């Protein structure tokens, strides 16, 4: 391989990777999530990170930080708590890949200096390399097969180039094994070695060595087919111990490559002719470079972001966050999340998400929405329905905290949701109780275009609002106003200029008048505390509160439909 090409490619990849990392990291100081950090500048954040780092490194917290590094980052403690298979997979990849990287890829720098007489073709390196490779492959498989299935009926969250990276990794390993296997089996490589190391090239003289290598080193000589003369092999062994043994162990210990070599035997001639050793090497190395260059742009980036996030968390455990630190941590969280789906599975409202058919309730989707909201994409024209679904998701969250407690990356998701709700409100996407009140009830009714008494009993709302669609549920009303008299909400709002517009009795009466739409956007319906005082005491047993709840659901549906973009009238 041309050294110049290799180096150019290496440095180019390194440069790309570095640029990518800078770009990604800059986002942590720029992305604004949450109204509380809107005013915080880039430099304030840099300063906060600097101060925080210094403070963490030069204090007793360092011990805790080290512990966190060991337990959370290296041993993946949080993942272990929730997903044993994936944890094991991650551990295998982490160990295998680190070893491969340091001991194999950086062998001239590391291994050769550590171990005297290191040769990649010697035991135990043959075994160890294959073992590491196999660990990575197995780990990747475990991670892949241990992944969470999407919630039935709900869209999978869009993931950051996850498969690209997995494919790349697989490709590197595959080409590695193929390369090694091919090299084992290649008569051409044998030829080159003998030319270089044995010193003589007479075909006949080398025949015993060939026999030995054919029978025990799996070199696929065309002319040496089994059964091979044992005498010849014995001769070869002598030759071997003189010329080759110092560098070459028997390759069976390469428990992956060796069988590969055997498998390649029938086509080795062809491969040799095609110079497979060269292009496989190119593929292998350039795939590695590609992986390196793409690190900041694929899901592998979590290998950077998660440890950082965990360490930042650990550093903040004792001293808490400054708002600038919060801002950074939130932005970091966007990068650290790999949509592993653990939070989705643990989410309290996941059944609701399924029932409502709105994946926007699930944490992974909410995180994506937060990112899209932070960079403004969510508010672009054409994404109104995404935005509304995101708002639904944000405001149906019960803040149960299960996502946070289960996040393997230790993200403070509750904080993120809180911040995102603030951003949604600021973007004109508040909770229904608020967007409904942006316009007076009459405005809503008029925008529904509902005629007087026309639609009250004939529409298809009966399934979601059966009581308000059934005249029998309020035809008993005798207008006594008991409901209003016992209503604490009306009682408390008499002192307020912007108190409730209707009273419970008036809402019931609007139903009777067939003017239900006039009630949908009313403050009364949305300010109802659902305390059930009215329903409990109604002399005519009208289910006032149940109807109020129905009207809200109906309002969300019907007013939501005419709300247009982002509720700005």
């Amino acid at each position, binding site marked *: 391989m041309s050294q110049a090409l290799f180096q150019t490619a290496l440095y180019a990849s390194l440069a790309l990777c570095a640029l990518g990392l800078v770009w990604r990291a800059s986002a942590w100081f720029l992305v604004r999530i949450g109204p509380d950090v809107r005013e915080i500048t880039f430099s304030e954040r840099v300063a906060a990170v600097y101060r925080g780092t210094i403070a963490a490194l030069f204090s007793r917290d360092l011990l805790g930080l080290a512990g966190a590094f060991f337990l959370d980052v290296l041993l993946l403690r949080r993942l272990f708590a929730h997903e044993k298979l994936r944890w094991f997979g991650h551990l295998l990849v982490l160990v295998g890949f680190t070893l491969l990287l340091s001991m194999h890829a950086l062998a001239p720098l590391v291994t050769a200096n550590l171990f005297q007489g290191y040769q990649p073709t010697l035991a135990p390196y043959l075994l160890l390399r294959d073992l590491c490779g196999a660990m990575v492959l197995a780990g990747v498989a475990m991670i892949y097969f241990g992944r969470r299935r999407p919630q039935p009926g709900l869209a999978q969250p869009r993931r950051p180039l996850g498969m690209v990276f997995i494919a790349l990794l697989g490709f590197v390993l595959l080409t590695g094994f193929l390369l090694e296997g091919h090299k084992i089996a290649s008569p051409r490589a044998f030829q080159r070695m003998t030319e270089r190391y044995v010193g003589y090239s007479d075909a006949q003289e080398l025949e015993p060595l060939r026999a030995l290598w054919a029978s025990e080193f799996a070199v696929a000589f065309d002319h040496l087919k089994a059964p091979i003369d044992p005498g010849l092999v014995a001769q070869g062994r002598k030759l071997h111990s003189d010329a080759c043994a110092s560098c070459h162990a028997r390759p069976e210990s390469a428990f992956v490559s060796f069988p590969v070599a055997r498998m390649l035997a029938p086509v080795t001639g062809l491969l040799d002719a095609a110079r497979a050793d060269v292009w496989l090497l190119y593929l292998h190395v350039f795939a590695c470079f590609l992986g390196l260059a793409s690190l900041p742009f694929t899901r592998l980036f979590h290998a950077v972001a998660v440890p950082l996030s965990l360490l930042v968390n650990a550093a903040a455990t004792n001293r808490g966050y400054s708002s600038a630190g919060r801002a950074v941590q939130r932005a970091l969280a966007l990068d650290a999340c790999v949509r592993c789906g653990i939070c989705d599975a643990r989410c309290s409202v996941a059944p609701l998400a399924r029932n409502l058919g709105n994946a926007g309730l699930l944490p992974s989707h909410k995180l994506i929405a937060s990112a899209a909201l932070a960079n403004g994409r969510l508010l672009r024209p054409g994404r109104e329905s995404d935005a509304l679904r995101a708002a639904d998701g944000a405001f149906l969250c019960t803040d149960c905290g299960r996502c946070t407690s289960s996040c393997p990356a230790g993200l403070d998701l509750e904080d993120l949701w809180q911040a995102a709700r603030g951003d949604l409100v600021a973007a004109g996407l508040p909770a229904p109780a608020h967007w409904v009140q942006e316009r*007076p*009830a*009459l405005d809503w*009714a008029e925008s529904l275009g509902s*005629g*007087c*008494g*026309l*639609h*009250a*009993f*004939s529409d298809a709302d009966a399934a979601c609002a059966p009581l308000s669609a059934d*005249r029998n549920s309020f*035809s*008993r*009303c*005798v*207008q*006594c*106003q008991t409901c209003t008299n016992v209503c604490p909400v009306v009682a408390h709002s008499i002192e307020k*200029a*912007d108190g409730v*517009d209707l009273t419970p*009795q*008036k809402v019931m*009466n*609007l139903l*009777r*008048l*067939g*003017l239900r739409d*006039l009630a949908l956007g009313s403050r009364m319906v949305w300010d109802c505390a659902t305390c059930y005082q009215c329903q409990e005491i109604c002399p*005519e047993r009208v289910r006032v509160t149940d109807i109020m709840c129905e009207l809200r659901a109906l309002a969300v549906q019907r007013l939501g439909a005419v709300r247009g973009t982002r509720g700005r009238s």
Partner: protein
Amino acid sequence: MNSASSVQTQVLIIGGGVTGTALARDLALRGVDCVLVEMDDINAGASGRNHGLLHSGARYVAGDREAAVDCRSEGDILKRMAKQAIQDTGGYYVAVQGDDERYIADFPSCCARSGISARVVDVALARELEPALSPRTIAVFEVPDASIDPFRLSLESMAHAQSLGARLMRRTRVVGFEREGRQIRAVRLQSRNGGQAQRIEAAQVVNAAGAWAREVALLAGAPIEMSYSKGTLLVTHTRLAGRVVNRLRLPGNADIMMPGGTVSIVGTTSTRVDALDDIRPTTLEADLIVAEASRMLPALAAMRYVRAYAGVRPLVGATGGRDARAVSRGYALFNHEDQGLDNLATITGGKLTTCRLMAERAADLVCRRLGVTRACVTATLPLPAVPECAWTEPGHSPRAWMRTLRLKDPLLCECEMVSGSAVDAIYAALRAAGDTPTLTDIGLRSRVGKGACQGAFCALRTSAHLYQGGGFQGSRGLAEILDFVGERWRGQRAVLWGEQLAQAELMEALHCGLFGEELQDDGLPDAPGQVAAGRAQR
């Protein structure tokens, strides 16, 4: 009688129904000075006691083609000229199993002959659009029926006429005519509440007294042949259908259900009556309507009804014992010249839909006699909308109130959501016309008392409100409440079963149980310590 004050005018119109008010407007628009006298109030007779149906004419295509054509063309005119009083709901003609197949088959061609559009509607689709239709429906046609608010129509016609100089005298009864040869020189009037006698000298007198036209004509010495048909209608608690729903058959009992804004109005019956006093719906009529109409709209069987009302149709030219429905619903204009009177005309009969046309014809006659040559403009000049007259429209007051929500505007009538400011506006408008408004007047001009409570609560709140604003003084309020509630009672009585009986019981518990309004004497001595006069107290 000689001391009676005298008023002069060109035309005196007797009767403030849809025809009389339309006539006043027509004449005023032609520059003719007129006075309208009404023994009760605007639309207090049959004009205010009907379906409020703007006929497409389809009802009469089989029996009375002339009426059908009139309805069609007049309906079109009103839809353009009195938009504010009309809701173009459209109408269905619906046949159920057992209805006359031949009539159903002939219906479209009959409609076509009268120029009325009648489109076949798929039964399943019709039931989807109007779920209240019976599952036994076999045929549905769509016709251009509409709903019209007769009160708004008359009130605005009168208001327009008054703005052009016409005068209105409510609660004034015609008690006599002073004749001189072939002329009526003056008409003697008696004010009903004040008791003051008056005299009007008019060049022309038009008798537009509706069902009372016979009595008026008789008083003038020019008897006309008329018979009366009483029709009763029921008002539902909630609105059942969006469109007018007609039974597809020859006109019969209870074959129309109208959307009355927030309610449905079901009727009518048709009963010959001989006298006009004490016309009120009966329980038998209510039962008949429920039984018959629920064949077409089954939900009507279990429906809560809030009230019933009955009006009298004046039918001209039939005094025999034939079925009143067979008598033409067409109008009649008498010039009385063959009876020796040259300045009296009687316009009666007809329908709500054709009231404008009737007024036009009567005005033409009067103008010819007066030598006024200006032509009628009511077919081309839209009726100006008047805010004070909008309160009769169901659903208007809730919207108006919700528009002004943040103001200090309490609802006085909760059922129909009529607010204090609405009552104040109506009160002020009447007051400005020199009237002393009563609760009943306000009820006629708004939805107060029209809802489920039938006056039980709103009469009290409205009277308290009027006291507070100075509208009521002394002990008058109690009498007003009694009048108002008593009037609502007339309508309620026939539909008192189920929920509405519970409502009525609550009303009595309040008005009698708590307030003791039925006790003429409360047993309180006039002065402390005295024994009450009147009924002895033990």
